[in-house]
């Protein structure tokens, strides 16, 4: 019986957890509660993925009102995997968070911090699982507002300006999405995504639908930090608390990619998005520009968090490139990279969290000799970096390999060149860190080993280990990504 209610519980459990958490008196109590709730959400996501793989799709009608009159949750392979990523990353990062948050956040703010975390989790899960366009907007705002709060709690004052800038850009994006949904509602009379998908094919010639498409693309592009709408992201990631950066980098942009996939393929349909509209050309150009320009800018950063933030903009470019191919192989690559990139960036930002905990800084110049002082942390960083570059036996290699194959399938040589060039640029910026940490002479005797505590190292290595695991055993990730691609193209059984 409870199995049928899992889709609602997936979101309601963290939602109800947030007010409970607010009533906690101590930061540690709030942490324990948040971790427990996140773990339950992970369990639910795992069970739901099982249901989806078994049944194909799962629907849930809130209040017992059938869609399109009521609000519906609808699960398939595409969002089931995103749910798993979001809850999984949240849980692992929370394991890490106790020590890091106690160090970076003032005690009286810790309870509010964890409450915001649960709200952010609620919002991200709600966006991912919903089958109703307006409900998506509401949960988008829950996740956005809570992430502004989480970012603003960074200890540098620039965290405040970064959060403000993100708030302005994010609200413009959300308002564009609201306009797009309104225009769609205007010509179809429905808000349910499946219902919209059924009604839009007759309206492909409508100029109102085309405008709605443009507004949704730009609005989601802002949330996604799609080049050139990415300007809010580097500062937001650089000055947020360490665990927030790890959480948001690994989940928020992934959920935005999911939104784009869902609207482009499921709601508007590949035929419209990639036939009637000039989207493929646009996405290829923007994706390639993102990979090349953001990777280049990353090389010149002195703050490593900021460097990895620019790298995130580049990685979003790879996903967009895969999407622009609009083929089964391309979409598989995009979804696969979505999954793998969450693992890489989660691991890398957690390693940086260890460094920030020990040094109080993540500036490149302060890292000299750190390879000997924090050997496990730096080894994790190197392993994550290799995955980011895309070396064989890492997860990063798998997704880039699929992307190259997909591009070759359609003879898109320039895309292959962009992928290779982007990887070479990644070698350069990762190497700068490795060189400083292992080969730069501090001019003093080797410092003693001062590692981060196990409670931080273990979660970091868990994610880094996952990079290696999914670089070797690809059945699960490639299988689900392939299934997701078939669902998006409407060719799933």
């Amino acid at each position, binding site marked *: 019986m409870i199995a049928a209610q899992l889709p609602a519980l997936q979101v309601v459990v963290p939602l109800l957890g947030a007010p409970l958490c607010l009533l906690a008196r101590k930061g540690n109590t709030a942490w324990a509660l948040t971790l427990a709730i996140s773990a339950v959400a992970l369990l639910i996501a795992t069970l739901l993925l099982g249901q989806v793989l078994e049944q194909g799709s799962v629907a849930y009608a809130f209040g017992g009102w059938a869609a399109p009159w009521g609000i519906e949750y609808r699960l398939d392979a595409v969002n089931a995997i995103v749910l798993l990523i979001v809850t999984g990353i949240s849980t692992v990062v929370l394991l890490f968070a106790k020590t890091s948050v106690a160090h970076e956040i003032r005690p009286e703010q810790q309870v509010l911090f964890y409450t915001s975390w649960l709200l952010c989790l609620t919002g991200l899960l709600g966006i991912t699982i919903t089958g109703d366009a*307006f409900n998506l907007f509401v949960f988008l705002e829950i996740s956005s507002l809570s992430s502004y709060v989480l970012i603003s709690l960074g200890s540098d004052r*620039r965290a405040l*300006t970064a*959060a*403000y800038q993100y*708030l*302005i850009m994010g609200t413009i994006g959300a308002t564009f999405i609201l*306009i797009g949904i*309104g225009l769609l*509602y205007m010509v179809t009379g429905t808000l349910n995504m499946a219902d919209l998908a059924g009604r839009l094919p007759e309206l492909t010639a409508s100029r109102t639908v085309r405008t709605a498409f443009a507004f949704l693309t730009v609005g989601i592009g802002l949330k996604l930090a799609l080049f050139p709408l990415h300007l809010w992201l580097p500062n937001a990631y650089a000055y947020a608390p360490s665990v927030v950066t790890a959480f948001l980098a690994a989940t928020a942009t992934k959920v935005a990619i999911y939104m784009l996939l869902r609207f482009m393929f499921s709601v508007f349909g590949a035929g419209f998005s990639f036939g009637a509209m000039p989207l493929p050309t646009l996405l290829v150009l923007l994706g390639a520009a993102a990979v090349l320009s953001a990777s280049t800018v990353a090389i010149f950063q002195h703050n490593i968090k900021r460097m990895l933030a620019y790298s995130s903009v580049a990685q979003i470019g790879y996903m967009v490139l895969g999407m622009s191919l609009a083929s089964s192989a391309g979409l598989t690559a995009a979804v696969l990279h979505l999954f793998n990139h969450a693992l890489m960036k989660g691991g890398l930002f957690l390693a940086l969290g260890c460094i920030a905990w020990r040094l109080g800084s993540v500036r490149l110049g302060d890292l000299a000799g750190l390879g000997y002082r924090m050997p496990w942390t730096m080894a994790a960083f190197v392993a994550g970096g290799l995955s980011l570059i895309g070396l064989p036996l890492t997860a990063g290699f798998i997704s880039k390999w699929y992307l190259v194959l997909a591009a070759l399938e359609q003879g898109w040589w320039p895309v292959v060149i962009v992928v290779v060039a982007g990887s070479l640029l990644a070698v350069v910026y990762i190497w700068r860190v490795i060189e400083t940490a292992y080969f730069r002479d501090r001019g003093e005797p080797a410092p003693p080993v001062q590692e981060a505590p196990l409670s931080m190292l273990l979660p970091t290595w868990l994610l880094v280990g996952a990079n290696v695991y999914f670089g070797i055993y690809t059945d699960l990730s490639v299988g689900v990504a392939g299934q997701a691609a078939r669902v998006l193209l409407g060719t799933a059984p």
Partner: protein
Amino acid sequence: MSAAGLYNYWIVILLMMAGFYVVISSGNLVKKIVGLNLFQASVFILYISMGKVAGGSAPILREGVTQFSNPLPHVLILTAIVVGVATTALGLALVVRIREAYGTAEEDEIHQQDESL
């Protein structure tokens, strides 16, 4: 007829763009938030306009009334108004903190201070 039926929407678009312009052109953090509010309030008018039925009345069921305006946009906009004020409160709280930390609420002066670090 064609123009008359769309005239309303065009003015609403003008309103939306006025608000949007304030957001992206102003350098003052408070005024940007005011702009966001203008932008969103105009989008609300767009939604409510599409729900109007000529000759209809407010969607409260009572004897003798058969033609109602569409209540669904009203519900959506009630939610959107609340979301908007939540964003405003948070944004203004950020402005207060920024002003305390930088001594100014002008974007260019904040940039100057951070670049001189």
